[in-house]
């Protein structure tokens, strides 16, 4: 365990080498749920980023007051507050988006990424490192979400952000927008990413 990771190292780690979705397999619930379109995916990534950064900041500010057995309760309390704020702001300013995301915004509270980052990084490191780690992780999460959402939206509706990419003759794969499509796309992408990293390390196929 690197005892004193530098902020930039934590930041870069979070994006690809320790990508929360592909590498650590955290936060799969929202990843599968909101990636049937590019817009909901990006809004979710932005709100997770907001919550993650604020929660990491607050937790690392009060880290030496934490009692071991009350740790989880305090983490969830802080995260829940920021998620409610994010939810209210979204409902006030982006009402249509908050309706499409529906129940998945409050589910950010139990999103494993945030609690894991709080426990592993924020409750031990100084605020600056904790925030950079949070930023890295949320960019990694955003990348993962948009990669899955892109695949699903292009295959599912033949276009991205309403722009028709595939030829009109392309029969939309409706399954890609449905729940099974989410599982299969993430599974295949996960396999592809593992294959990529193994090829880089010259591993055995």
């Amino acid at each position, binding site marked *: *365990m690197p005892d004193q990771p530098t902020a930039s190292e934590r930041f870069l780690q979070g994006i690809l080498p320790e990508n929360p979705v592909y590498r650590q397999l955290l936060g799969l619930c929202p990843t599968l749920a909101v990636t049937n379109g590019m817009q909901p995916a990006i809004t979710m990534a932005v709100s997770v980023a907001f919550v993650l950064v604020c929660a990491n900041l607050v937790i690392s500010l009060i880290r030496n007051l934490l009692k*071991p*057995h*009350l740790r989880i309760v305090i983490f969830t309390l802080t995260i829940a507050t920021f998620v409610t704020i994010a939810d209210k702001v979204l409902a006030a300013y982006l009402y249509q988006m908050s309706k499409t995301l529906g129940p998945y915004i409050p589910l950010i509270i139990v999103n494993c990424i945030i609690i894991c980052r709080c426990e592993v990084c924020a409750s031990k490191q100084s605020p600056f490192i904790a925030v950079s780690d949070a930023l890295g992780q949320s960019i990694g999460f955003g990348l993962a979400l948009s990669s899955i959402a892109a695949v699903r939206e292009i295959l599912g509706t033949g276009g991205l952000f309403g722009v028709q990419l595939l030829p009109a003759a392309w029969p939309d794969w409706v399954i890609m927008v449905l729940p099974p499509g989410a599982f299969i796309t993430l599974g295949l992408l996960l396999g592809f990413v593992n294959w990529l990293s193994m090829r880089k*390390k010259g*591993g*055995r196929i």
Partner: protein
Amino acid sequence: MIEITIGIAAGTMLGMAVIMSYILGWANKKFRVEVDPRVESVLEILPGANCGGCSYLGCSEYAVAVATDNAPVNRCPVGGESCALAIAKIMGVEAGAIIPHRAIVHCGAKKEDRLGRTEYRGEHLCAAATLVAGVQGCTFGCLGFGDCVDSCKYDAIHVIDGLAVVDYDNCIGCGACVKACPRAIITMTDFHEPQIPTVKCSNRDKGKDVTSVCNRGCIGCRICAKTAPDLFVMNGNIAVANHEEYREEMGASALEAIEKCPKDCIGYIGMN
């Protein structure tokens, strides 16, 4: 109106927090299970990776073992030196140098050394191949399909030319390959020296059966036991190296035994 709502909101949260923490506090005291406080403090120091490198089921098992039936404190490969010293301080035990705990593959036969190999078309998994008799002449040796490679999370073991070889720079001694090998020819041993001699064979048949299936198998000729009795000892038809006792100064007799071995199946392994 708004201040009153804020006031009531804060009040409800406070009320709920008081009730919940009171119940938890009461439960904490009432349901106090007498746990040796040392176990908790040891558990806090351990990295919590539950990798099994200490050959216990997980960090909590190892912490209990250390605190109650004083298991060696330096067993945690991931925690390393700092973790061992910290636990030793709690347990008031002398930490002792960290003895690296690494894996050894007791087979030295490459593909060309193995005789009687059949053309095996089944699953390319040792777990499946070991069920088929006669995949290769020797029924003890390494199958080379890499179950151990798949199980290793630290990329410390590779199948080279049909034989599993440990890469001692990456190996942290987590023991995953020991569990993965269906023929159980990988053992975890303490390396008192960076390089230690070992017998690279686990074929317990008689000499003539061994030579019919492998060019490098130990035929039980006892020469190594005679030349370096404190290092090698015979266990039935196969020689077994005494890794615990080996120290640097016994290198001469080990080298002599290595030359004398007709099958060249003893050798040095370890970090270079």
